[in-house]
């Protein structure tokens, strides 16, 4: 038996955090998700797997367009032609798809509905496999759906579970909270998890883990991305990671030598970028430098602009963000004793104050979501400190 576990494919989701991309990068970025998906399908056929498990979030239901639908249909049809079954359950982002009755899924696609169901399959080698799973019918599930899964029966050689959710206690979580013990009580041979976009193993034997998404979509989803190819090795179902993402999010540090001329800066950076050996990299460049000019160029976005301008379509990478490697945490705020600054921190850096400072004029839900949380607040505070430090330096620079 051989199968693929690929969760959170999120077809059609755009890359986040990228600004002012040159057109050639825009084009690469646009196609990345589809490319990764097509690679998955091609691999499935080449490996002649028995079936593919897709535990949720194949796409975002409220943003599905014809191209995505047709891509999916065509891909599944190709799988059908290769006698590969698809077990598809819907997660918190594509739960709407579970309600569509008119969608012409090919005959090899088996959908899970909102109640936990178990499906049967016989592999090419004649092994009987049971697969249990469920789909989301709405955005949140607070119940521990794991409790509704049946215990492994004697009839099947393997019993697999598909579960879109995250660890947690029942009632205190929005994504079908589960506990590892509850899963283990079912005595399944493999749990194909979905929902977390990072590849993550919660347990190795039997395997309970997340395959992560096929293509990283923001800087937090860095490194290789792909799917799990699962095979039986000495009675255990072991997943092997296969990378398919054409774009890798990466972070690189670079120290700028002192007294490097401004007009050599770009060339130096370009020369020093490592990138990825196989795929295109989106690089978050962390500069280490004390050179005030460099700092100024970074702070004013000029360095970014220069790099963008000098980028070439042949480059296997693109620097999408430049920042200073973190200055010391205790930023020396100039001229005044540190505690003078610290006294006001808690008053200034509140969500309410952020609202008053302009956030309240923003209506876009995604933006609000991004800003109205404590992590962002801390991030902004750090940025304020850095800015004040730079400004303080400016102040002293003026004096000479």
């Amino acid at each position, binding site marked *: 038996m051989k199968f693929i576990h690929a969760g959170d494919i999120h077809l*059609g*989701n*755009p*890359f*986040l*955090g*990228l*600004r*002012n*991309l040159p057109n050639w990068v*825009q084009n690469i*970025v*646009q*196609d990345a998700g*589809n490319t990764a998906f097509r690679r998955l399908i091609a691999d499935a056929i080449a490996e002649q797997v028995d079936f593919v498990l897709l535990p949720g979030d194949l796409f975002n239901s409220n*943003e*599905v*367009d*014809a*191209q995505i*639908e*047709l*891509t999916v*249909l*065509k891909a599944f049809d190709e799988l059908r032609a290769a006698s590969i079954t698809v077990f598809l359950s819907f997660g918190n982002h594509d739960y709407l798809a579970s309600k*569509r009755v*008119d*969608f*012409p899924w090919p005959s090899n696609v088996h959908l899970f509905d909102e109640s936990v169901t178990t499906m049967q399959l016989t592999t090419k080698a004649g092994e009987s496999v049971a697969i249990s799973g469920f789909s989301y019918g709405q955005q949140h599930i607070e119940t521990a759906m794991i409790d509704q899964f049946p215990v492994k029966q004697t009839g099947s050689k393997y019993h697999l579970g598909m579960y879109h959710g995250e660890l947690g206690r029942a009632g205190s979580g929005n994504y079908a909270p589960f506990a590892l013990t509850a899963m283990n009580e079912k005595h399944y041979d493999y749990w194909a998890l979905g929902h977390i976009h990072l590849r993550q193993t919660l347990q190795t034997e039997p395997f309970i883990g997340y395959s992560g998404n096929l293509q990283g979509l923001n800087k937090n989803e860095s490194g290789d991305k792909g799917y799990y190819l699962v095979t039986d090795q000495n009675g255990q179902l072991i997943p092997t990671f296969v990378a398919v993402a054409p774009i890798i999010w990466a972070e690189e540090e670079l120290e700028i030598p002192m007294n490097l001329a401004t007009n050599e800066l770009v060339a130096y950076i370009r020369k020093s970028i490592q990138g990825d050996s196989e795929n295109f990299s989106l690089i978050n460049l962390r500069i280490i430098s004390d050179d005030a000019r460099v700092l100024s160029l970074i702070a004013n976005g000029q360095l970014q602009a220069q790099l963008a301008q000098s980028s070439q379509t042949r480059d296997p990478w693109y620097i999408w963000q430049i920042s200073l490697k973190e200055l010391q945490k205790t930023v020396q705020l100039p*001229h*005044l*004793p540190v505690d*003078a600054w610290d*006294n*006001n*921190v808690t*008053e*200034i*850096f509140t969500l309410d*104050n*952020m609202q008053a*400072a*302009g*956030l309240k*004029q*923003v209506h*876009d839900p995604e*933006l609000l979501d991004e*800003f109205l949380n404590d992590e962002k607040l801390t991030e*902004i*505070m750090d*940025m*304020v400190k850095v*800015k*004040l430090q730079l*400004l303080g330096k400016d*102040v*002293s620079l003026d*004096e*000479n």
Partner: protein
Amino acid sequence: MKIETASVRGFGQWHDREFDFATGLNAIYGPNGSGKTTLHQFIVAMLYGFPQKRGNRVNTYQAAEQDVYGGKIIFEHQGVRYELSRFGRTKSELKITNLVNQQELADPENFLAELLGPIDRETFEAVFSFNQTDLLAIFSLKPDEFAKRLRQLAMPGSDKWVQIANDLEQTAANEFGATKTAKRPMNQLLKQVDDAKQAMQKLITGQPLTASLLQERTDLQSRLEQLQSTAATVRADEHVTLANQHLLPVLQRLEIVEERLTKLPVMLDQQLVNEYDAVTAKIAVQTPNENDELPSAAAIGQASDVIAQLAINDREQKLLVQRQLDLQAERQHIMTQHGWQTVPVATTEQGASTVTTPVLSKVMWALAGLALVVAVVGLLGQQTLLAGIFMLVGLISVGVGFQSRNQAQTASSEQQPMTDNSDEGRLKQLDQSITENNARLQELMPKMSELREQLAWIGRDLSPESYQQKLANFQAEVTTRNQQRTQLAQLRGQQATLLAQLVVKDSTDLTIRRQADEQRRNLHHEQQTLTEQLGGADRNVLRETLGKTPQTSDVELNTAMNQVQQEIATIDVRLERLANDGQIQQAKQKLADLQAEASFELQNILVERLAAQWINATLSTTIGDRLPDMLRLSQQYFAFLTNNRYQQIDSHGKQLQVIDQNGQAIKVIELSKGTAEQLYVAMRLAFSQIVSANVNLPLLIDDAFVDFDAERYERMIDLLAGLSEDQQIIYFTIKAPKFDAKVIDLNTAR
């Protein structure tokens, strides 16, 4: 630190000059332009470096001659004496030597920075150096500016920060307008995001539903397959169809026939019709008789009588004629016998007549004989009329003959009755009889004529038997006719009944119906023939091909198939295009990019705003923190300076106020110029003391009290003297100092 000596090699107007200072109060005096300010700036420059940039406002104190620029100072700091030298304006070289061990410091910059601590140049200028200008300036201040100036006092360098805060706030405000209709970059960006979202939604909803397109395609595909199978069927049947080609006209005709058949009325019941026909035939048979006029029963009856009478008459006539003939014969015989030509008569006058009469009588007799012969012949020949006529003629002739004779004879005979001997007498008898007969005949004749006339309608000159026969015939005919009439009526009745049974209006209608039936039969017959001809061919198939040749239907199917294939191809193209349409993905990515941009800019704005707020808050609190100490000290100094006239400074509320000895609160603006100056100095001094608690640097006062009156001046100097116990003060003035201090007279030093 306390400065002991300042040695100027070249700075401004000073060359190679040395000045020694006391640790306490120093008074450097000289008239205007004597270099006080230059010296002041030199000291500052030693500590903080030379002014780097040349500019309109920056005095670099470049030495007039091409001399060495710079100098040195010797100072004491924490018990150790150092010599600090700086030479060269642009690329100045700093050297510090520890005079105790004569060691030059490896890192003079650092040492100096540490020594100076948080007091940078600006702070130093703000705290440890003040001059007349500062003092004068406070009068032109508006209240909030004064507050600002005080804040500047409390926090030197705060100006810059206030400016920074303002700039940040301004930048943020320029980026992001607060009103709904604001069109600043951030507002625009947010709107762009919104527009991009809507545009994308529109793109998505503007697409056809994939599911329905696919469904349409599936439907079309089945239709195509249907058509294809039909086409196959059609082609398979093609030869059959061709074979059936010749049957087409048959079918056509058959259809016409059948159509007509449907239009024909119901067939008549043949039995009834036959009966009708029989009846009609019977009627027809009798009908000709209708045309004959048959005599009425009365006429027949009458005629019968007449005939009877005629028969009698006829018989009588015949008898008479016979008799006549017999008589004639006998007469003739006699005559012959005797050879008489005429009857011998008494020759009398009758003789004459008789003379003639024998001729006549001879003619007459000839004629009569002829006529009689003919009559007999006629009778024999049943030419009764003819016979009758000739007989009549004959008889008349005979009659005439006899008459002439008889007249003669009668005349004679009347005279002589029949006595004769037999022959003559017989002759006379005969003649008489003949004459009687004749008369009788002549009597009869008109009667008979009349009778005959009455029977004329039956026939002419017929024998009574004939008449009788005829009459009998007539009778029979009448009877028959009556029978027939009855029968006819009966038949007609039957006819009517039959018509009713046949559900036909009248005979005309029947005729029409029969024609129709005839037609029907014909058509039916034709139908059968045609049907036979058709054999087993499927009518529907034939019918379908009716009017078309097999090639045509194939073409139609092909056209239909092509059309469906076309439609399928169109949908496939559409699906293909949709599948490859990256437009929406592009729009999504662009939207995400815009959102990233918006996020980035928003973040910057928030950072700017929060930074500004933080600066202001920090400044406020710091001032707030410092203010009490400073106020306390300021109060102290102020009270001293004003000779306790004002003992309190009130910093609460927006404006600074002072409380006079009567407890009266007076706003700073309301103070006199001099008093305001005193307040300002008090506060500055107070602040400098607070700051120098951490870093002790010399106070450089640049003739700040020129317009103080003597008393105030003196008090000021007293205060300074007091402070100078811990604080090195270098006081630059134009007045010769009359107080206890290290005095440097720049006049003499020149």
